[in-house]
């Protein structure tokens, strides 16, 4: 079956612009996670969705970052007024739900802020 997909694969933007990153999880997976991977910080958790709710947003680095999930499926991570330190690979993962710990990752979106 189809895995987790993310778009775009690569995004180059100018400092100060807003960007939207999309994640399509595996069909039927109720849990969805966003992580960020950067040279300086390694792999960091950003936000967790269960269905359309986000009970854990504790990893979002600032109020410029927000995310939503609709229909228990697609999720969008939005970064407003991008800064150079936002440059990273943004990874999305999904899992079947509570008690099923294995997460399935998408290929990531590589964001470069100039």
């Amino acid at each position: 079956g189809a895995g987790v997909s993310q778009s775009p694969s690569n995004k180059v933007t100018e400092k100060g612009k807003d960007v939207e990153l999309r994640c399509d999880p595996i069909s039927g997976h109720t849990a969805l996670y966003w992580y960020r991977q950067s040279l300086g910080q390694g792999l960091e958790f950003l936000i967790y969705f269960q269905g359309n709710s986000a009970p854990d947003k504790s990893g979002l680095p600032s109020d410029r970052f927000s995310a939503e999930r609709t229909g228990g499926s697609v999720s969008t991570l939005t970064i407003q007024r991008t800064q150079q330190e936002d440059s990273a690979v943004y990874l999305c993962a999904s899992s079947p739900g509570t008690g099923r710990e294995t997460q399935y990752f998408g290929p990531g979106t590589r964001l470069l802020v100039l």
Partner: protein
Amino acid sequence: SQQGEEDPQALSIQEGENATMNCSYKTSINNLQWYRQNSGRGLVHLILIRSNEREKHSGRLRVTLDTSKKSSSLLITASRAADTASYFCATTLGGNNRLAFGKGNQVVVIP
């Protein structure tokens, strides 16, 4: 903050040799998982070991867990060039199963 820390950070071996990498963590865990990443993109789940397990095998992979030392090791036997990748350990924190990753090991298998 990073939960796990692997040692060594980079490993270069000949094809056919075994590769061993370690991971340590700081808090109690539900389980510990190992992931592989090729070319800095998506992670692939390799194996999960629960806190009440001490050793687990999957194909050429062997994982050990020592909860008293808060450490784990991943052994890849009879390595192949295709095993060249970065390997991360990750622990789950809390009921939402969010992953806390270590810094990762870069493994290069020379044909």
